[in-house]
């Protein structure tokens, strides 16, 4: 190698080194900064919201034009519509459908209706093993008959059952049967917090996706409960095993309110739709705590008859609280994409919330 070549080589090498140093000095800080930012934002789980939905749980399906417009504004893509409940009929000594929904309006355009069936756990407690097939056939038949009659094409089904360790085998067999009877439908099941935390015991349903019900976690009948719809402290006690849970989970969040009426300390009924305004404007109700009123004499408030001495505990899950709940659960949902459903669609309630307020709920999971 000639000296020139060597020098050239040396010069080249030196230049390369200088370039390299320059590169490092210039870009590494940016790399470090970006890495830091990346790591920082990696701690917060981001999700891609595939569908924004509502539950429709009322006995009459009657969405007004303004309601349909509102659904459109909110970009709602699915309505999980309760078709009917299944309860154990003592007289007939078998499961029977009840509270069958009446379709009284046309379907909102562009929104998919997902038939949702609520089955009381008692049904599976009392059902014989050899009756599971018949039950799945009956339920499947009824869903399809109702869908045909009301011209509702559907691609998925959701079952809502608070199953336990004792009933898991029968319920899961039921779900398997449903899958076989409806092979082209996506099957979903609601999952409650305790069914994640203790999934080893209670099992995992054989469905395509689970819908995590992130509400109703408190003991509604306990007089000392503050808000049975959503209680952060209680919820946190159940935030375990999400990392191990094998089913992809969607999330269901609350947006409703009610009053729990206590008679001599015993919860006797739920006064749906009761608000603080309703109670504070009633001269026969006296506020005794932040969310409690007592009836000074027999009275009626928003069509609910309250006897003297009865105590109403108001419980609210507004958009703010729902967004907080969403933010709380978000890091625990390990699947990247998820569908979010709000319980529930009630036009009289939804009008109190602006679109940004409701959007905030969905955004908290992004």
């Amino acid at each position, binding site marked *: 190698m000639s000296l020139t070549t060597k020098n050239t080589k040396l010069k080249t090498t030196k230049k390369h080194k200088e370039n390299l140093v320059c590169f490092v000095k210039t870009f590494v800080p940016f790399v470090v900064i970006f890495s830091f930012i990346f790591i920082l934002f990696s701690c917060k789980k981001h999700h891609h919201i595939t569908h924004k939905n509502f539950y429709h749980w009322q006995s009459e399906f009657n969405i007004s034009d303004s309601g349909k417009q509102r659904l459109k504004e909110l970009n709602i893509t699915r309505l999980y519509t309760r078709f009917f409940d299944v309860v154990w009929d003592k007289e*007939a000594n*078998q499961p*029977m*459908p009840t509270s069958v929904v009446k379709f009284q309006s046309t379907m909102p355009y562009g929104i998919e209706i997902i038939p949702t069936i609520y089955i009381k756990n008692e049904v599976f407690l009392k059902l014989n093993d050899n009756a599971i097939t018949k039950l799945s056939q*009956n*339920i499947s*038949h*009824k869903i*399809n*008959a*109702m869908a*045909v*009659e009301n011209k509702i094409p559907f691609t998925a089904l959701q079952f809502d059952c608070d199953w336990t360790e004792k009933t898991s085998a029968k319920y899961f067999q039921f779900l398997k049967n449903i899958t076989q009877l409806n092979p082209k439908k996506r099957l979903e099941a609601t999952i409650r917090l305790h069914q994640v935390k203790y999934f080893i015991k209670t099992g995992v349903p054989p469905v395509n996706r689970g819908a995590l019900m992130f509400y109703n976690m408190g003991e509604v009948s306990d*007089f000392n409960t503050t808000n049975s719809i959503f209680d952060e402290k209680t919820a946190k006690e159940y935030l375990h095993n999400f990392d191990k849970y094998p089913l992809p989970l969607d999330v269901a969040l609350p947006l409703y309110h009610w009053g729990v009426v206590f*008679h*001599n*300390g*015993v919860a*006797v*009924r739920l*006064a749906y739709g009761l608000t603080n305004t309703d109670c504070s404007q009633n001269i*026969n109700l006296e506020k005794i705590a932040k969310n409690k009123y*007592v*009836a000074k*004499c*027999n*009275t*009626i408030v928003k*069509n*609910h*008859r309250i*006897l*003297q*001495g*009865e105590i109403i505990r108001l419980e609210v899950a507004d958009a703010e609280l729902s967004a907080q709940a969403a933010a709380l659960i978000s890091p625990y949902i390990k699947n990247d994409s998820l569908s979010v459903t709000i319980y529930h669609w009630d036009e009289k309630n939804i009008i109190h919330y602006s679109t940004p307020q409701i959007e905030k709920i969905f955004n908290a999971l992004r």
Partner: protein
Amino acid sequence: MDAPDYYSLFNPQIIDSAEYHPNYFIDIAREFSPNTDDDQTPNLKEWGEYFGHSVQSNDIRKLVYGYNQNILTFLTNAVKNRKITTPDSLLGNTAIDQVFVTNNVEVFEYLAFAYQAADYAVAGVWDGEAESKKTITELIRIGTNLYKKCANNFLKIRYGYQLTRLAHISKDYEQATSFFDTYVASSKTESIIRYWALNYKAGACKWLGESAESIYNYANVFAHCKSRRAHAMQDFSQLGYVTRPTTWDSAIKLCKNADEKVNLWAMRGFTGFYVAENYSYVFSPSDWGLNTYYDSAFECLQNIAKINPASKYLEPLLGQAIQMIEYNKLNTKRLTRNGGYNSMDFYENRSSLPYAEPSALRDIVNKIKANPKTKRPYFWNYASAYLSYLMKDFKEARNELKVAESKHTTDKFLAKEIASLEAIMKLDEATSVTPELETYLLNTLTQFDIKPFSRKEEWTYNFFDRDYNPSHTWKYIMDKMSDLYDKDGNFEMSEICEPTLQLYSMMDYDTTDMLLKFISKEDKTPFQKYAATFYPAKISALYNLEGTILMGRNDFYGASVRFKKSDDSLTEKDYLTADPFFIRMRDCHDCDYDSTSKMKHLTKLEFCEKMLELEGKKDQLKPDASAEVYYQLANAYYNLTGYGNCWRALSFAEHCSLSLRQDCSKAEEYYKKAMKLTRSKEFAAKCCFMAAKCEQNTFYNLFAEFNSWDTELRQEGTKEKYRYQTNFATLTTRYSDTKFYQQAIKECGYLRRYAKK
């Protein structure tokens, strides 16, 4: 609140109405349904009359309820075509045989249709609406044709029922009412089926908004059909008649006679509270005064009495009205002292319930009793007496009781209540306990067999059973006597009459001993002896309790004497839960507790005897042996505390933290003694460590608040803590070269921290 939680001195047993028992008590009225039959019994009775005596009832049951559509269709064909062979399984049924013999194919035809309709009523719920309607339409077509073909009135009314039912199920309510009117109402056949069908018509009217017609029909079902009574009441209560007087008036106008009006009022009276408790209505406040609550029993009683003073509904409705008054007026004292929703706060703030003033009710009662047409006027005399008692008008009450007594002859229930009320009044007037009072009450209680309230099943009350004893007379008498004894300074009898002391939680020797001596003594009055038999803690249990208390005081001799006197058979509680002489370096409450063999350890008596033995010889031995005995005793004293493995031994109640002994001073004393006596340095180290544990426990017993999150308090606590570490000091200075010390410092964080300092 539940029935046993409040006083009710009006015993429903005196009401002469097995069929219409009132809704006792208010809070359980929701779960309560009136006496009902099943559907099958009256229907089978009618089929039995139809077939006649030659057919066996089991065969009829099988035919009507035990087969299915396929079998009945087969049988229909077999009658028509005698060449078809009847399978063996159907042979020998006398009902089937009769149909074949009489060629009465219509029976099989009807039953085949009935089975088909019944099956669809159940299975059809799973069809879609249109599908279901189609199937039912076809069934109605078949049924209508069969009805027209049928010549048999007994079967025709049944077709009418099936058709009404099918129309109702398919929600064609107009058709349902039409079928009833055409095929059932027009039939002259007397049958329970008429009311089954009427129940459907009532429901159809409800859905069609014909409330008055619906109410009227439900009342007729209520009156004539036991098996559908509860259902009719439930639906009736949803109809808003309370808030729309016009509906009620219209329903009354539909009544064809006085009986129907009475039925309507009765139904309203019995279901009145359902309305209040369970349903909310849309109505205008102007329809109905908000502040005047609706006592249905009282109002209905008034109206029925005007129409028919001999009505069978009057007595049960009166019972209901009185229950309302008792709930509100009589109960100034709580009967139970459980926690939860029966606690004092809820009791005292309990919701009031609607009731008629006793004076107003008494006025009606007096009118009824004065009416010559009244059934059992002596009952109304008693009722008037009782209401006077509630008004504290004892003179009037006694007058009425005299009349009642003179009028009735053989009503043993009434005789008992008359005597009870006399006794109650005498007691209410008494200002102190006298021998005469005791004798009088004892005679009344025993002569009339007045017993404590009994509950046959948790949470269910069978008020139809006249042997059931739902009155609180006995409890009331005992509670009142307790108050009087207390006033007289007779603490023991006050407690015996009304047990309030939580002896097993209190673990108080003096109180227990006082009661024990009293219950054991012979010279008690007859009333005192009688009352003592009901006291929940028996002598044997009290000795056991005393023994346990003395054991906790380290009086093992006294304890063993008591345990020997307690002759109850041994239960789990009489055994120690672990070996009390075994100790661990680290406290582990339940590590030694073997849940599978609770009874293998020492009994309390055996433990006391062992302790006596060890205490007796601890100073009699050579030093090393003596040290060992002291060590064992120390372990036992430690394990009896809340820190040890036999902490339950000093507990009697199920959940008892109060009786936990925390004082480790005796154990510490004996560990130190053992430490001094022994020549083994290792053993001494062990004893010293255990003494240190005791000392530390003493600190925490005295200064628990220093173990808090409050920094200032913790700092205070830290200063105090040093004063309770003298044994740690000894352990580290004298025994740090022992193997035991090395092991202890690994296991015990407190020692490690101390040693570091």
